[in-house]
């Protein structure tokens, strides 16, 4: 079995962070989102992986993943170019997939239970496809699968007005090469995209069996800043913490804290886990780092109170205020305006930034 990880898309809902890099490289608990997908596939025994690239951030993604050897996999790159829909993305992988079954994994999604159960469920029957489902409270906002008593999918509906099921598609598929014939028969939808749900419905209309598997645990699409913060909370909650760096004896560190071996927590700093602090970062005296915060590499925190936030890295943050629920992009600087005249906040903000002052 092979794997396909989707690393395209424009990341518009994550701007301005995605003005300078692809959304799949935004870190969650100090690990780029796409790395979770690669590791989930590897842990399911899938090491031959095609990474689909769009128009933006190709070099960044290739630079990060390389040939895959650092992650224990072998990567083939597939350039899709314009985002023409999930079915187009899958279709671009036909030469890579050849005659194998394959798992399709959205590169900006995180699942805490991986894909092994879904793959095993697919293998139990004579299926041409398998889809991962999760129970949601607002099924009208998702693609919904209706199933029979044996978990076989009977119908797929995109954002139904009157949902007959509360099981939403969560963006992981196991597919056989039969899907390529189905893709060839469908046409772009009203939004100009080749929809994977149309291809799956085509398989169902031909009487072919499509498996469904309700995944356990949580699943998070990290398309928006609040999703990144939520995913960060969920991942940090599952971490045991590991204090590998330098902690001054006068620092107050409690809870689960991941501290990189080259990171430092100075005396009179307070850190309350779960927290992740990356390489070469310094938490100076008088600083408070509260629960559900991830601080990226080469960052200096000074006299700031920081909680439930993601600092991507290479930043200096020395404001004397409290920063909460925030996503701070790479190499951003937040310092104090205290003592400056005239009094007031001083901002240099990129396009589509979002501040609550």
């Amino acid at each position, binding site marked *: 079995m092979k794997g396909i990880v989707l690393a395209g898309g424009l990341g518009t809902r994550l701007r301005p962070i995605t003005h300078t890099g692809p959304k799949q490289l935004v870190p969650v608990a100090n690990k780029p989102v796409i790395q979770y997908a690669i590791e989930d596939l590897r842990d399911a025994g899938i090491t031959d992986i*095609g990474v689909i*690239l769009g128009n933006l951030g190709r070099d960044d993604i290739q630079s990060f993943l390389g040939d895959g050897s650092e992650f224990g996999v072998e990567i083939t790159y*597939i*350039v899709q*170019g314009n985002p023409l829909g999930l079915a187009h993305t899958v279709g671009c992988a036909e*030469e890579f997939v050849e005659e194998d079954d394959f798992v399709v994994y959205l590169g900006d999604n995180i699942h805490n239970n991986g894909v092994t159960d879904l793959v095993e469920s697919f293998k139990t029957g004579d299926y041409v496809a398998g889809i991962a489902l999760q129970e949601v409270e607002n099924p009208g906002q998702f693609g919904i699968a209706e199933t029979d008593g044996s978990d076989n999918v009977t119908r797929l509906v995109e954002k139904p007005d009157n949902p007959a099921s509360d099981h939403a598609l969560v963006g992981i598929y196991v597919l056989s090469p039969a899907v*390529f014939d189905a893709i060839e028969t469908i046409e*772009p939808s009203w939004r*100009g995209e080749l929809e994977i749900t149309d291809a799956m419905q085509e398989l169902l209309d031909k009487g072919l069996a499509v498996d469904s598997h309700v995944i356990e645990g949580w699943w998070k699409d990290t398309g928006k800043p609040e999703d990144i913060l939520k995913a960060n909370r969920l991942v940090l909650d599952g971490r045991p913490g590991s204090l590998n760096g330098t902690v001054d004896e006068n620092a107050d560190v409690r809870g689960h804290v991941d501290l990189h071996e080259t990171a430092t927590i100075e005396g009179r700093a307070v850190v309350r886990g779960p927290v992740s602090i990356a390489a070469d970062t310094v938490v100076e005296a008088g600083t408070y780092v509260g629960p559900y915060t991830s601080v990226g590499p080469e960052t200096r925190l000074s006299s700031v109170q920081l909680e439930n936030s993601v600092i991507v890295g290479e930043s200096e943050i020395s404001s004397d205020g409290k920063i909460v629920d925030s996503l701070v992009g790479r190499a951003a600087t937040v310092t104090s305006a205290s003592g400056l005249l005239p009094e007031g906040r001083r901002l240099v903000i990129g396009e589509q930034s979002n501040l609550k002052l």
Partner: protein
Amino acid sequence: MKIITLTCPECGTIVAANELEERRIMKCPGLECEAVLRFDDIEATDREYVLEQGTNYGFD
């Protein structure tokens, strides 16, 4: 809709025909690959199909 791609003979990187049509000629995007890929490397019938499907492929 038929999805047409070209595989780099040097490194195996795959490029969608719509991307090649847009650029006509491009350095292979594979890691450390120096091969040059051309829209004309795609079979004539497939090229014709891509051009006929211009709107669906995001170009006219």
